């Protein structure tokens, strides 16, 4: 039986790569933590005072306590939920917009392309951080504004990539052949071209996730992010004042938690690119 699709083949190569497999496992662990925290099964009582103020890490509290005597580990887990949700929601906003606009622009060309190109050039002309700050400030501080701000900025890259790739595929003879056997625009674009560009969405999503997580941390640090809940960014903000007093565990916890997941998404993105992007094959 030799029925190995390109996807299965790519997945097999991905799992053969130790680093990629490890990254995938880390991402899955973070996702489960986020899910469990969201359902309140873990870290539901993060706000409870469980000990003295600023206790160093110990057997009961592996990452110590913060200034209000709250368990830092619980805060880190709770922060995981915020971070992962930002990655997820941003992707859910960016992917449909980016894919649909990019595909339409690349496939139809002409004025459709002109319009969509203008749209994303306009959006990318406002430096990312400025647009993020403006949107969160205007929508009012909070996680909702962060979702919208990151979603509004991150479809641009995907749209540009998809557009370019669809343009390339449109000229390929397999698409012309689909037209020759009587297939319409819908069939050509959605059944033939899009399956050939989905790898870009997957690679981009992996990199998008880490960008969203990093941005959420910075926005939260600036006080624009989630309110009344712990985020890795607010924890780092707290640590800014604590560090000179030797209280390092809050910073260490938040930084490490973020480092691992961002690293995993980075490695995964690279591995996905290697195994899915045919252009790079054989290098």
């Amino acid at each position, binding site marked *: 039986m030799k029925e190995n699709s390109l996807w299965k083949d790519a997945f097999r190569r991905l799992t053969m790569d130790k680093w990629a497999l490890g990254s995938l496992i880390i991402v899955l662990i973070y996702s489960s933590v986020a899910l469990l925290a969201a359902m309140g099964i873990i870290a539901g009582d993060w706000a409870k005072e469980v000990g003295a103020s600023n206790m160093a890490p110990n057997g009961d509290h592996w990452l110590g306590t913060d200034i209000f005597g709250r368990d830092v580990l619980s805060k880190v887990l709770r922060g995981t939920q915020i971070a992962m949700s930002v990655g997820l929601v941003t992707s859910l906003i960016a992917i449909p917009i980016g894919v649909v606009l990019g595909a339409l622009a690349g496939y139809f060309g002409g004025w459709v392309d002109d319009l969509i190109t203008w749209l994303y050039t306009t959006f990318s002309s406002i430096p990312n951080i400025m647009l993020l700050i403006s949107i969160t400030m205007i929508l009012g501080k909070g996680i909702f504004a962060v979702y919208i701000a990151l979603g509004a900025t991150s479809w641009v890259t995907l749209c540009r990539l998809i557009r370019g790739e669809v343009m390339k595929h449109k000229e390929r003879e397999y698409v*012309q052949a689909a037209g020759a*056997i009587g297939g*319409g625009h819908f069939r050509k674009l959605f059944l033939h071209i899009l399956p050939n560009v989905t790898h870009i969405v997957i690679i981009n999503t992996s990199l998008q996730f880490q960008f969203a997580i990093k941005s959420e941390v910075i926005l939260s640090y600036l006080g624009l992010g989630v309110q009344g809940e712990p985020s890795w960014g607010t924890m780092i903000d707290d640590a800014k004042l604590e560090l000179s007093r030797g209280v390092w565990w809050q910073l260490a916890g938040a930084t490490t938690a973020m480092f691992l997941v961002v690293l995993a998404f980075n490695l995964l993105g690279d591995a996905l690119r290697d195994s899915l992007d045919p252009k790079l094959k054989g290098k």
Partner: protein
Amino acid sequence: MTSPLLSVRNLVVEFQTGEGITRAVNNVSFDIPAGKTIGIVGESGSGKSVTSLAVMGLLQKPAAKIPQGEIIFNGQDLLKFNDSQMRAIRGNQISMIFQEPMTSLNPVFKVGDQIAETIRIHRNISNKEAWDRAVDLMNQVGIPNPALSAHKYPHEMSGGQKQRVMIAMAIACEPKLLIADEPTTALDVTIQKQVLELLHKLQQQYKMSMMFITHDLGVIGDIADDVVVMYRSNVVEQNKAQEIFYTAKHPYTKGLLACRPKLGANPRRLLTVSDFMDDQGVEKHVSPERVVVFDKEQEKEKSSEILLEVKNLVTQFPIKGGFFGRTVDHFKAVNDVSFTLKKGKTLGLVGESGCGKTTLGRSILRLVEPSSGSIIYNGKDITHVYAEELRLLRRKMQIIFQDPYSSLNPRMTISEILTEPLNIHNVGNSKQERLDMAKQLFEKVGLKLSHLNRYPHEFSGGQRQRICIARALMLRPEFVICDESVSALDVSIQAQVLNLLLDLQEEFHLTYIFISHDLSVVNFIADEVGVMNGGKIIEMDKASSIYKNPKEAYTRALLSAIPKGEVKSDLSSMV
């Protein structure tokens, strides 16, 4: 006898791949005497290019290994040279021309600088002198207005000119050995002939040795002294060109010689390598009925019914320009073309790239919208039908494209690809019925049923082209356009596909338009031939007579550009 300039002894090249070690060159030995041309012939993957890269020392190092062998050049083993020693040889004593002139030049430097660079590496001369020499070389390789052209960038030149620049670069230091790796494969036939003649002239002038690599024995007939035939990493035969062409011993060589269509000879089917040997390489006797020659004239008219009539067809594309990208003019890719095609016949369209033959084919199928004129199919004007009618028309008219690698969707299995046309047109009552129809045709084009669930990348180029043919025939069309459908294939595979197309034509009573740049192929397969140039059909005649009495100068040029597939006769006697 003096010792040869280059002597390859028992060369083995291996590649480390994900699946283990593969041997690309197995125990290959041959000599290139000083001042002689040797042709290395074989199909893609036979190891001929790898051999040449090994001589140049250009194999990608960690992946490629040379566990055994010697490459003696001028009495020294090149395999023992270190990097800087090899660099002093490369471009200076041994130089190389590659297949793809389009990508082989650096896009951001002037061509004059790129030629001068080669000279400055190996000769201690000033920039000015190097530049003047570059201009002189460009003159020698026949680039018009060399002093001006030297200031051009590669994208401002045609493919043929770029290949001339590559040649100028290669002969800049008057090397002793010139390696040419399929230097004409990417070029039009008339350009191919000019480049071949140029290479031969320069070889004589500079008294170089030349190693000419090709998949097409016909190409080197005119220029090679000796021929080495490679098959699956091994040398299967080597001899004087004379001997190879007239008394080939190995069945593979015989197959290669026989599979190229020749003007004048009209076999019913082309012989292929598989007529001469089986899969294991054991020689077979050619069955006599395979070599029946027939006269197309004698064939009684299959029908007199006209299937397709094209009247004054024009297809034009806007030329954008000016400030706002407004349309400033139109380029007429197809310019006032008219012809009629009878049922069951084949019309061959021949011409060089850019002559409009591809656009004409696509305009007839309405894949490109014609600007004026009319297309009458089966008595009905289809120039302006739309939507549903056009869709129904697609059942009757099909197309087979040139590039077998890009014409199959890499994300679909072969059974999905073959049943898709049936799904679109609601042919067949059930999934199973459609699958059965796919199976039937899949076998008919000569592929194994067990491969039906594979993906395109698991097939070779020739196999993919068979799949494309099967897909085109799934809807049982009456009319098929073959757009350069065999041009991307090695000659040995090309013959098999041509035979298949003829078999299918007989079985399904198909009418073909066969588009190609190769007049000998068109002449073999078509009943009538139209020669296209500048968007017009400039000459049209019966296939059997066009090569005897060409009326237009352009047709004559095309005819004379066809490699004869014979040994050079007067050329070598001149020397």
